[in-house]
């Protein structure tokens, strides 16, 4: 038995190619990228050793501080919004729609798989001021409110960004949390109902405590995704107005490919990776049990 299931040649043949590709295209580049932090230059012009200059610059660059602040702000707002809205929707699915909700669930999920660039361009036009007054401003005008230049100030640009990201992701978190809620045994709910728990009381005392694990993993998954946000911001605001909505991911991209500073770009990427690593450590500490259970 172990001779077959432990056949080294078979292991090498079946696992080897995947491991090789993974090592060459992901593991080695990660280490290589670490090395880049000590150099400056790019693939076309060549590299020059600069020691710890890039890391010193990382800590003194006001744009890094700004990007880091925005990344964290964005992650916190969107994560809170996604999970809260998703949870409310999930409760709505379970307690109001019950088994009739399949069509609604499917509909609300659809934006999740629309290409982000398309969603972002659509929201750009929805909130546009000139030359065409978009539907949102047209609606404001109906109520006698003057059109707002949504992408003209940092705060309103972030507002549009938040609305867009919640629109496209709430269906996903709703389904995720909905499956978690379905796992709550019916007899517990039923006996709570017989004991007189209804509505809010039921949610607070029974549903919330019992869905805490799936709620927690949603939060962690959401943070991990929002820290790496790139395409929705590139397509909606491209970091503007000015640099107000530039997260670390975009700043890294601009530094590397617009200014050709690979060394400094790699340093920003390292900062981003460390940030993600901290969150991932939390994933393992909180979901260890679930992983082994599979």
């Amino acid at each position: 038995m172990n001779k077959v299931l432990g056949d080294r040649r078979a292991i090498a043949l079946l696992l080897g190619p995947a491991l090789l590709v993974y090592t060459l295209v992901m593991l080695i580049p990660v280490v290589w990228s670490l090395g880049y932090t000590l150099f400056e230059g790019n693939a076309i012009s060549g590299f020059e050793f600069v020691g710890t200059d890039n890391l010193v610059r990382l800590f003194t660059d006001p744009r890094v501080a700004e990007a880091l602040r925005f990344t964290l702000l964005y992650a916190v707002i969107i994560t809170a919004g996604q999970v809260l809205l998703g949870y409310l929707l999930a409760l709505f699915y379970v307690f109001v729609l019950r088994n009739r909700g399949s069509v609604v669930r499917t509909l609300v999920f659809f934006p999740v798989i629309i290409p982000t660039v398309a969603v972002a361009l659509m929201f750009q036009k929805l909130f546009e001021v000139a030359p065409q007054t978009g539907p949102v401003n047209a609606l404001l005008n109906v109520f006698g409110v003057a059109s707002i230049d949504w992408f003209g100030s940092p705060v309103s640009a972030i507002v549009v960004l938040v609305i867009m990201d919640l629109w496209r992701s709430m269906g996903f978190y709703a389904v995720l949390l909905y499956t978690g809620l379905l796992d709550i045994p019916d007899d517990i709910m039923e006996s709570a109902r017989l004991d007189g728990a209804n509505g809010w009381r039921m949610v607070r005392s029974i549903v919330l405590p019992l869905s805490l694990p799936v709620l927690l993993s949603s939060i962690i998954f959401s943070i991990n995704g929002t820290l790496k946000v790139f395409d929705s911001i590139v397509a909606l605001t491209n970091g503007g107005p000015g640099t107000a909505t530039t997260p670390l991911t975009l700043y890294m991209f601009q530094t590397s490919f617009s200014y050709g500073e690979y060394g400094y770009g790699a340093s920003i990427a390292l900062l981003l990776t460390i940030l993600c690593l901290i969150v991932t450590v939390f994933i393992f500490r909180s979901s260890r049990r679930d992983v082994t259970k599979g």
Partner: protein
Amino acid sequence: MSTATLPTSSEQQRPRRRPASRSGSVRRIPGTVLIVLLVAIEVLPLLWLLMNSFKSQDEFLNAPTWALPRELNLQNYVDAWVTGNIGQYLGNSVVAVFPALALMLLLGVAAGFVLEVMVFRGRGGILLLFLAGIMVPGQMILLPLFSVYFQAGITGSLWPLIITYTATGLPLTVFMMATYFRAIPREVFEASTLDGASIFRSFFSVALPMARNSIVTVGLVQFFFFWNDLLIALTFTNSSQLRTVQVGLLNFTGQFGATQYGPLFAAICINVFGILAIYLVLNQRIMAGLASGAVKG
């Protein structure tokens, strides 16, 4: 878990339920309002999108934004497809995504099988190594890859995209497949081994057919990740002939000089409603697949 210990409050002494026949219809009203609101929030922007794809430039600038298009003109779609090159970009996306998808599934499913079914030292460590890749942001591997692809002289083709997608898709695929294979009882493979099957035979004739559904689900999930990717495509498509559909859409207004609203909306529509066609057929599988990928990842 017992619910008998719940503190009883005074309000529970009151009658708990109104007559069921009345409350049934009354209680449905807020629910119905919420459903209508929810559907409106999802559907209205998309309807507006579709409506705009038929309008002429004159209608955009001089008619209210919610006005219906004057005629069902398909010229915008022709402009988007031909002048806007969306047709070519879609072709590029297909050429980059599907080979990567096939290659990644082939490598990833085999690796997941070995890491879960076969017995050898260090398999836990290797699984963890793959798992770590889910966390690494794309930015961390872009620069070395760009240098290598540049040195290798393949930056003028779609190979960088195919190679990078294959590798970045592996961690999640290996992990999801390992989880699926874990659900198959070990006795199955022990039985096939006792019956004299080699490990390759067990893999191709037993494991693959049993995991067929899972493979399709993983492929579907990864398809959307690859198809919707912007970061990798933006980095490695240095000429306009190589653009994938997302990069092309991002640079769409550049094709015309000033913003031509009609073709732009048509281009967005091609993107959105193409995906919708897939979603109409496979929605339940897509929803379940993406949700399981998230919980496990």
